[in-house]
């Protein structure tokens, strides 16, 4: 997949006011990461970097300096919880907000799909581009 911004969504183009925000997407499902990257970059608001093999997460994060991380929970090798613990222990990455993206939640837990539990942000799969965008904006706004 080409590592260049894809064509922006027409109706979202008007919202672009500054440089794309760097989003690190960690998920073992390549088709999922491709679709998220396509859709988010199409908004023109985000530059998305994908990690499909979770053990590489820390290294990529160190290089990419993401402003926000979308992190899958259930992954082979190192799962989302452990990746999060690792990132938060590291000086260069501990301040970066994380949104957990999980298929393992019931509707009652997830509510609209984006929710907070135990101090963490969660997004329930499947997620729409619109909700992804809103959730990222909300978390980044809190950080600022």
């Amino acid at each position, binding site marked *: 997949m080409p590592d260049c911004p894809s*064509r922006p*969504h*027409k*109706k979202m183009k008007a919202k672009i006011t500054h440089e794309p925000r760097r989003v690190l997407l960690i998920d073992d*499902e390549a*088709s*999922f990461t*491709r*679709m*998220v990257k*396509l*859709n988010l970059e*199409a908004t023109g608001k985000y530059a998305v970097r994908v990690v499909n093999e979770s053990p590489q997460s820390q290294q990529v994060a160190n290089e990419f300096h993401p402003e926000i991380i979308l992190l899958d*929970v*259930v992954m082979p090798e*190192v*799962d*989302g*919880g*452990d990746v*999060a*613990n690792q990132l938060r222990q590291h000086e260069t990455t501990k301040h970066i907000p994380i949104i957990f993206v999980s*298929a*393992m*939640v*019931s*509707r*009652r837990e997830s509510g609209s799909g984006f929710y907070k*539990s*135990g*101090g*963490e942000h969660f997004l329930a*799969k*499947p*997620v*729409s*581009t*619109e909700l992804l965008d809103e959730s990222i904006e909300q978390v980044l706004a809190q950080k600022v």
Partner: protein
Amino acid sequence: MAAYPRKLLLLSPDPTEESALREHLSKAEDGKYELRRVETLEALKQLDLVNACHAILLDMRIESNQVLDAIHSIGAVHEGVALLCLCRNHDQLREHKDLIHLVDDYLLAESLVEGELPTRISHAIRRRQKEQELLSEQNLLKQLLENIPDAIYFKDKQSRFIKVSQAMTRTYGFPNPDDILGKTDFDLFTKEHAQLAYDDEQEIIRSGKPIVAKIEKETLPDGGINWVTTTKIPLRDAHGQIIGTMGMSRFVTELKETQDKLEREGRLLKTVVDYALAGIFVKDSKGRYLIVNKRHANYLGAHSVDDVIGKTLYDFFDPVEAKKICTSDANIMKTGKGIEHMVDHRVRPDCQELWLLTSKVPFHDKDGTCIGLVGISQDITSQKEIEFKLKSAIHTLEETQLQLIEAEKLRTVGRLAAGVAHEVKNPLSVVLLGMDYLKQNITDSKELIEVLNDMQQAAEKANDVIFELLDYSSPHEISMLPMDINVLIERVLALMRHNFSEAHVTLHNELTPDLPLISMDAPKMEQVFINLVLNAIAVMPDGGDLTVRSYEQRMQQTGANVSSKMTERFCIGDRILVVEVEDSGKGLTPEDMEKVFDPFYSTKATGEGTGLGLSVTRSIVEMHHGLITLENRKDTPGACARLSFPTTQKNES
């Protein structure tokens, strides 16, 4: 005294002698005499002399060799018949002088004066009879003393034996009665008995008062003991003067031993009955209590044994109950067949319930007639209570097991659903995001947009199905019911027993009984304690101690030892139910304290757990309006999870 007419028999060869004697007898003044003559000794021997005559007159003219024979024969036949010799004169008398002392009298026929014959005959008869009576009495005494098995003794004033029975001689080891004469009790017995007997006898001699049927213990020099019943009376001479004592002692050693044995057996039986660890009773054929011990009296609701004796079951139970038992008792006595180990449920007059294990057998007299029954009852009330509790516990366990099976089933479905959800939701995400992208880029074909919308709706429908599956597998239907939290904890601990033993963890149960009930969803709350206990076991890999404690406390004013979370959740004065689960592990680091309830935070090594346990636990506790805190123990290493619940729910949801 012989009756009249006096029958006389004359042994004489001379018929004239008969008529001569008749002549003499006819003039008798003292009454009538009948005379009969026989000629020979043989003829005389043929007669029944005792009934035939009172006296025999022997004419000495019979052949001389027959005279002695005649005297001996007559004397041998009957000593009660008087025998007189009839000599002619002094010459003939002299001739037979050696024989005269063998007969009662002699008569001189030729010189008989008027009236002499009947007088002499009468005197001879009377003398003979007196002698006979004396001999007879002597014989009676002799027989008595020789044959009676009792000790009979006559003593002088100094208590020396003057005559004793043969039995006494034998008993005290003397060859014949004469050997004992002149001796005293001090020669026969030890001083212990001899002195008592001597004192008794001297008192009888002094007072003249007898001692009757006194039980005495005779102690012999060889250590032997005789038990006797003794009667002693004063011995008087012909003038009524006391000249000593006489007495009779009957040997009753065997009787006394039998009596003692019976008494011992009676005492033994009474001891057994009184102190048996069971109720024992004996009833007569009318159902009246003859014997009952204290324990059985208590079973009947009576205060003492005396309150029961002579009474029947109708005095202690209602008529229906009493009749039922009486009918059963009557049947035992009728058939002779006892009953064993009958479980009896009774309600005592004080309304206390009683379970008895009773056995009864018929009771027969020595002829084999049933005269009542003997029974033994054991109080098995406490065993019965345990049995009921056990049954109830088994029932509860069975129910719990069913619930667990149901829960396990749901967990299996849950795991399946989670797997399915993960595998399906990722592709669905791709599909939906793909359609998002296509919709953004296709603007010129309305038809294509519609197709994409249809596809999106279909994908979302599929997503709904997955959600339903996930929702179904997590049983979140809450059913809040008031419950004793101790019961629930005990159930969990019982189920996890093998986890403790496997991990070498010792359980300390410090649950306070009678805590107020709190409304809870039992399966969810069980999950809470299972999680806490499993966590505690996990932090003690080398074994340790786990304490589960429950108690009630009142919310105190804000202070150093009351956390801010507590003041947020509870008001001062609220009654709070607290449960603590303590382990003896390493305890928590400050970092653990901060994040322990966060999702995915785990102190376990990577891969051992997802770290969802405490987060779920907290959710459930909060669902019950409770609070969970985790802290290190103050005095000893280890952590303590404290759960606080309001005892009255603020708002039921």
